C-alpha cells in the first residue's frame, strides 16, 4: 500500500547518500551518533532511576535536573539520526514489527521520565510508586535497546525491490 511512498523515499538524494556514500560520515557516522545519543539519554535516565531506587543516596534526586540539557541533547541527536536512518531504509523499518515495538518502548520510557522529573523537581520524598516507576523505566530502556539491536537481525523487506531471505 505504501510502496509508492517507499519507492520515492528510497530514490531521494538524501536516502541514496546515506546508503551509498563511502564516507564515514554517512551511514557509519549516523549509526555511531545514534549510539552516543542512546548512551547519554538512557544512561543518565538510568542513573536517575538507580538514585530513586535508593542507590547513591547522598545525591539529592533534584541534582539530576542539571543533567537534563545533556539528556535533551541525546534525545535530539537520536530523533535526528533516527529519522536519517529511517529515510535510508524506509521499507525495512516500516515493514518490521520490531521497529514499532522499539518506538512504543521509547515513548513509554519518555512518559515515565517526564513523570519522574515532575516528582524530582518538586523534591517530594521518594514514594513507593516512584520506585516502581524507576524500576519500570530501567526495564523499558533495556527492552528498547534490545529491540533496537534486534532491528539488525529482523527484516521482511530490505527495500521496495529486495525481500529479505
Amino acid at each position, binding site marked *: 500500500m505504501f510502496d509508492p511512498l517507499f519507492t520515492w523515499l528510497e530514490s531521494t538524494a538524501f536516502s541514496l547518500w546515506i*546508503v*551509498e*556514500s*563511502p*564516507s*564515514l560520515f*554517512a*551511514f*557509519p557516522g549516523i*549509526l*555511531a551518533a545514534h*549510539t*552516543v545519543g*542512546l*548512551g*547519554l539519554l*538512557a*544512561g*543518565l*535516565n*538510568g*542513573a536517575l532511576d*538507580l538514585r530513586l531506587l535508593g*542507590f*547513591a*543516596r*547522598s*545525591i*539529592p534526586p533534584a*541534582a*539530576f535536573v*542539571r*543533567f537534563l540539557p*545533556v539528556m535533551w541533547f541525546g534525545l535530539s541527536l537520536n530523533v535526528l539520526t533516527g529519522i536519517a536512518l529511517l529515510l535510508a*531504509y524506509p521499507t*525495512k523499518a516500516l515493514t518490521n514489527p520490531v521497529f514499532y515495538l522499539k518506538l512504543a518502548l521509547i515513548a513509554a520510557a519518555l512518559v515515565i521520565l517526564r513523570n519522574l522529573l515532575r516528582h524530582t523537581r518538586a523534591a517530594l520524598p521518594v514514594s513507593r510508586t516512584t520506585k516502581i516507576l524507576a524500576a519500570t523505566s530501567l526495564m523499558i*530502556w*533495556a527492552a528498547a*535497546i*534490545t529491540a*533496537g*539491536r*534486534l532491528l*539488525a*537481525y529482523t*527484516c521482511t523487506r*530490505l527495500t521496495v525491490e*529486495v525481500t*529479505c531471505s
Partner: protein
Amino acid sequence: MIPFQVQLEMALASFTQVAAFMQRSWAWPVVESVHFIGLTLLLGSIAAWDLRLLGVARQVPIAAFHRLIPFAVLGFGINAASGSLFLMTFPDQYIYNPAFHLKMLCVILAGANVMVFYFTVFRRLGSLGPGAQGPMLARLNGAVSLALWVTVIICGRMITFYRPNGCRPGEAAGFLAECIVR
C-alpha cells in the same frame, strides 16, 4: 617467531566451545544487546560523574557522585565479558581491525585517566564542600574521560565497517546483505 597478533588470534580461537555457543542463531544478538545495555550503564554513570567534575550540579559534593562509580565499573565488567565472547568467536575480525585497535587504545587511555584521578585529585576532594569549583586537574580529568568513552562507542560502531573481509559502505549489494542485515 610468531607475530603477536597471530599468537593472540590462536589463543582466542582455542575457545571453541564459546565460539560454538555464540554461533547459535539467538546467542549473538542477545550478547550484543547485553553489550549495548552495559554501554548505557557505563556511559550514563560515568557521564554524570564527569559532568560533576566539569562543574555541573556543583551544589552537590563531588564525593556524593562517587557513589555512581560502582555502576560504571559494573557496566565496564559486563562489556569486558560480553566483548570477550565476540573476540573468542571471530578473533580475526577484531585483531586485524583498525577500529578495534583505536577502541582498545581509548579504553586503555580511559583507564590511565582513572589512575591519574585517584593518584592526584581524589584525596583532595573530601575537603571540597558543596558549591566548590573542582581543581583544574579534576575538570580536565572529567573532560578527557567523557571524550574517551564517547570515542570508544564511536569506534565500537565502526568495527563493522573495518572488518578485514570488508564491509565498506557504498559497496551496495554486499554491504546490504553482509553488514545491514545478517
